């Protein structure tokens, strides 16, 4: 039996336009009655065998898929630059100044729990790494910064980080610590989110 090329065209258009793989019953329902569906599909499979797109049978259903060897050209790497959250920034600073330090120590210093995502972001950025385990109960993992961290921030050595007093002298600390400040902050809360010093600040 010879195939009607019109039937092949119809099956091809159906496969192309379908939003999901099609079973043979669909072809039977939508092509003319006399169409030999298995033969048509076999012919299309052969036609597309060496093309950029292949007719593939998935879970008993048919669909056109790009050839597996060409998958690489359908991928694209895109870089998006993102800013660190305040929590991530502080965590990074603490790890840099206090390394090696544990998660619990970071939480102790920041006075607030550390959400999983915060550390993940720093790992993803390639700026922190596990360094070992503290010889205390539970043997918590200690963290430190990476070489990439030093390179990114233009530091030759971790010892090059300025100390607290120097930071203050350099004007990087514009909020004078004083006993009354906390009350002020409490009163101003909500007015200026950036300056909020509520220790239970929302993470991320």
């Amino acid at each position, binding site marked *: 039996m010879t195939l009607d090329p019109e039937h092949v065209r119809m099956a091809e258009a159906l496969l192309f336009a*379908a939003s999901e793989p099609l079973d043979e019953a669909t072809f039977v329902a939508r092509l003319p009655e006399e169409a030999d569906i298995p033969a048509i599909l076999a012919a299309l499979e052969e036609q597309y065998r060496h093309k950029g797109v292949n007719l593939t049978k998935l879970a008993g259903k048919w669909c056109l898929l790009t050839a597996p060897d060409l998958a690489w050209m359908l991928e694209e790497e895109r870089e998006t630059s993102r800013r660190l959250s305040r929590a991530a920034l502080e965590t990074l600073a603490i790890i840099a100044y206090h390394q090696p330090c544990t998660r619990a120590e970071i939480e102790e210093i920041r006075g607030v729990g550390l959400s999983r995502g915060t550390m993940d972001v720093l790992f993803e950025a390639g700026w922190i790494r596990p360094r070992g385990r503290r010889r205390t109960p539970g043997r918590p993992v200690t963290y430190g910064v990476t070489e990439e961290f030093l390179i990114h921030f233009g530091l030759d050595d971790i010892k090059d980080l300025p100390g607290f007093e120097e930071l203050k002298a350099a004007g990087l600390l514009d909020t004078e610590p004083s006993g009354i400040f906390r009350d002020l902050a409490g009163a101003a809360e909500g007015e200026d989110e950036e300056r909020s010093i509520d220790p239970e600040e929302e993470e991320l």
Partner: protein
Amino acid sequence: MPRGAPAVDKGSFDGSEKANPDVIPLPSAALVVDLDGYEGPLDVLLMLARDQKVDLLKISILQLAEQYLAFVEEARRLRLEIAADYLVMAAWLAYLKSRLLLPPDEEEEGLSGEELADRLAFQLRKLEAMRKAADKLMNGSLVGRDRMMRGRPEGVRVIRRSVYECSLRELLQAYAEQKARKGITNPLRLMREAVYSVEAALARLENMLGELPDWTDLMSYLPENLSDPFSRRSARASTLLASLQMAKEGQLEIRQSATFGPIEVKRGKNRR
């Protein structure tokens, strides 16, 4: 030609046609007037011109003007609300009609009646052309209606890689700020003083272990100066945790001879 009677009867329109905004009701011999169905006076004129059943190039503008005037007359008789532009058009067509009927006045400035009629005819042809173009456009092969795009595009998979931006200044500022914040008050401090930390228990155990080589009750390693029950409970828990940690490292051995009996420890074999 009798006033108010378009030449050809195309049948009065019924409700079903009116329901479809794309179908324009045709004026019938009885001149049923429904201004809502029209897109302005030019639309009415074009419809009347089509009723002449001739090429727009050959329509009689005079006849058209008369038909339009009859149409508006009828609408007024039926006391239908007529928008101002229909009336303006009627006035203009009445003027055009008089210009076309009267012999040309050589003295009068501006366009002659014939020229005005030509311009109107041209306007109608332009509108007609756009109507037909719109139809052809809609009757063509529309993508999504007649021709399908890929139903299941695999698309280009975008692998996103985040690059984090952060300057040294920001980093230092963050540290300084949290340090400053810390300098103000530490809300956890009060609690922590009451708690006997595991680290402290570990240090104490490590120090004292060497002095007591035989099985000793673990509880004898507790600091003596703890007065309140909370601190004592905390010290007991921390010391037990510290002993377990040291046992794990082989620094000490633990035994308990009875359930709820005293837990005893002694120096382990790996004691450095």
